[in-house]
Each structure stands twice: as C-alpha cells, then as structure tokens.
C-alpha cells in the first residue's frame, strides 16, 4: 500500500480539504456556541425549584444521553421535512449537534454548581453580599475550576462528532475523504488525509485544554 501511496493526488485535492476543514471548524464552532446556550438554559431549568420545569429538562437530558447522535441526526433530517419544516442540511446538522452537546453541557454545569457547598452561599449571604456579588466572587470562580476541563473535553467530542454530518451529505472533512474515494478510488489516501486533519485540530484543542488546566491549578495554589 505504502509504495503506491499517491501524494500527488493528495496535493491535487488539498484545496478541497482546506475548504472542508473550514467547514468542519465552523459547523462545530456554531454547534459549540449553541450547545453552551442550550446547556446553560437546560441546567438552570434542571436545578429550578419548580418540579415541572425540572422534570422537563430532565426528560430532555436523559433522552439525549440515552440515544446515539446518529439516530438524533436522522430524526431531524428525515423528521423535520415530514413536519413541514424545510431546513438545509447544514442547519439540521448544527441543530442536532447543538441539542446533543447541550444536554451533556447541562449535566457538566449542574455538577459544577452543585459542587459548591451551600454553606459558602450562606456565608456570603451573612456577609451581606448581593446576589451578583455572590455569583461574581464566590460561586463562579469555584465553578469555573470544576467545569472548564470537562467542558473543553465535551468541545473535543463535539468537534469529532461533526464527522457524522457527512452522512447527511454535508461537505466537511470526512466527506472530502469519501469524495476522494469515489472519484479516484483511493480510500487510503482519502481517509488517512482526513484523519491527519482531525488529529491536527485534536492536538490543538488538547493543548488548549492542558494549558487551562495548568492555569487553574496555578490560580488555586495562589
């Protein structure tokens, strides 16, 4: 295989890969932003005192966590048109990524909020801090340390999951490999190049994650 490995074809397809890399980045970036918003809202609903609201968010989170992303993706892809809601493939893909990661982020945020013992908040209250002050100086600094590492981990998962969008014929990195396979019948060149691009992004994200973790430990030590 290696002696017939065709680097010239890879060079020829490099512009396509570049375009697809950007597509992967923006699709997962949009999904990440959406997931953060959904996650914050779902987390707030989950810990709300109203039983109904909390149950609703619980059903959303559990049903997302117990089913695969691919099934959710197909659910929206085949389901929304039959409801009479026309959506582009890209919008469907970002929607599925958003709702999927949003549920996991809600759980991460909830764990972060609940990791702060109620005594801290009581102490802040009796020191006469307002709600905003309590959030700003007591709750959030501690919660960020607990939630940031798993949130970054979820971001890495989200970006890898975006590969599934190729199955509903969205142009992104994995799709580029498929195109190269079908046009030139060169699966080795196609999919290995795809894998290299994913690895590049993975190592960058992992580096960022490691760096923030070091910073967090440093701040705690101070």
């Amino acid at each position, binding site marked *: 295989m290696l002696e017939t490995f065709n680097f010239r074809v890879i060079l020829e397809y490099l512009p396509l890969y570049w375009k697809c890399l950007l597509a992967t980045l923006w699709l997962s970036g949009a999904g990440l932003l959406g997931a953060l918003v959904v996650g914050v809202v779902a987390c707030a609903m989950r810990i709300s005192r109203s039983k109904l609201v909390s149950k609703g968010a619980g059903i959303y989170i559990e049903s997302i966590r117990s089913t695969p992303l691919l099934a959710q993706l197909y659910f929206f892809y*085949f389901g929304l048109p039959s409801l009479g809601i026309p959506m582009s493939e890209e919008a469907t893909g970002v929607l599925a990524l958003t709702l999927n990661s949003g549920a996991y982020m809600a759980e991460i945020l909830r764990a972060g909020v609940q990791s702060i013992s109620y005594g801290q908040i009581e102490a802040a209250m009796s020191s006469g801090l307002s709600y905003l002050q309590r959030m700003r100086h007591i709750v959030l600094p501690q919660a960020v340390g607990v939630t940031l590492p798993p949130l970054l981990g979820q971001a890495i998962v989200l970006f*890898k999951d975006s590969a599934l969008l190729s199955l509903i014929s969205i142009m992104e990195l994995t799709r580029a*490999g498929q195109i190269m396979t079908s046009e030139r019948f060169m699966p080795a060149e196609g999919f290995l190049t795809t*894998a290299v691009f*994913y690895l590049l992004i993975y190592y960058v994200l992992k580096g960022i994650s490691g760096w923030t973790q070091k910073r967090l430990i440093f701040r705690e030590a101070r």
Partner: protein
Amino acid sequence: MDSEASDFPRGALRPRRKNMLSIHFTQLMQTLPFFLKGLWGTIAISGLSLLAGTLVGLIMGIIRASRYKILRMVIGAWVDLIRGTPFLVQIFIVFFILPEVGIQLEAFPAAVIALSNLSACFICEIIAGGILAIPSGQREAATASGLSSYQQLRYVILPQALRLILPPLVGQYVLLIKDSSVVSAIGVLDVTRVGWLTVQRVPEGLLVFGLVGVLYFVICYPLIQLSNSLEKRLTVVTTRL
C-alpha cells in the same frame, strides 16, 4: 414531501396528514420484526466489542500504569491517535483500507474490530487512571510483605482500583452502545441501519427514528442509572473507610 409542504399552508395540509400518519403507523408496526433484527445486530456488535474491548483495555491499562517506559509511550500514542479521530473515519479506514493491504473483511467483523479497538483505548485510560490513583504506599507495603508483582496487582491494587474503575467503565459501555450506531454507515444491519432503510419506504422520519430512539433508550437508560448508582454507592464506601 418537502415541496408539498412549501406549496400549501400548514392548516390545509393537516387533515390529510393525520390520515397519512395512521397509515404510516400501521406500516411501521408491520416492520417491527425487521427492527427486532436490527436490535439483535446492535446487541451482537456491542456485546462482542464490549468483551474484546474490556479484555484488551485491561491489559493495555495495566501496561500503561507499569514502569516500562517505551511500552507506556507506544500505548499512549496509539490511544491519542484513536481518541483524536472520529469513529466514523476509523471505521472507514478499517473497512476500505485494510483490503488494500490484503486483509479482506466483511462489514460485520470490520465493525467489531473498529469498535473493540475504540473501547479498548478508552477503557485503557480508565483502568490506568484507577491503578495510578492508588497511593504508592500500598504497593510498597505489598512489596515489603513479599508479594510478587502479579500478586500485588491481583490482591492489593486491582480490588481497590475497581471502586474507581467501575462507574466510568459502565458509562463507557453506554458510549460503546451509542457509538455502535455509526457502523450502520458501512451497511451493518443494526437499529440505525434498519431505521434508515425503513424511512425510505415509510416517509415519516419522526415516527421511524422515534422508534429507533426508543430501542436505544431501553438499552442505555438502565445502564446510565446503574453507572450513577454505582458511583453513589462506591463513594459512600470511600468516605466510610
């Protein structure tokens, strides 16, 4: 379906749609045996990969937590490669590229190999983490008592590490079952594949993939609950000690 929806206002469409929905529902109920076949496919693939992945992952994890530096680095690099690429790409590599080096594989064994490898890598990290979390004094005490390194692992380290390993391990099994849906991309007949085939004939995506979701939920939800309760029970033990 799409053009139909944009040509008519939604209200005008509704009575007919309701009728179609019931027809599609009976159609879907007729394909239920097909779905059960898919369910069997999902269970077979995840079961086989779970066994193989746990076994290989255990061995890899023990080596990863040992003092053999080169072996540790090789496994670490491999785990990073697997964790850094999407499972879909891995399965395409196994299915399309291995034949080029002369290993001809059917879709099913290719799926099992890719999925076992993926879960072995994640399980390796869980097991290595559990072993390394045991204080080194335990190992030193075991050495001082004259236990061989196998005995240390078997009677001192692993029983304690199990408490840390078990909850994430069950969580990993849930991920494995969910990841098994991706193998439908190379045509393995699992629940997702059955849903995809059915939706071509019964154009009611919400119903079809709703059913697919329910089937996955029935398997995964109890496992998630098990993982949660294990975590709670085992941490209680920790605080009591």
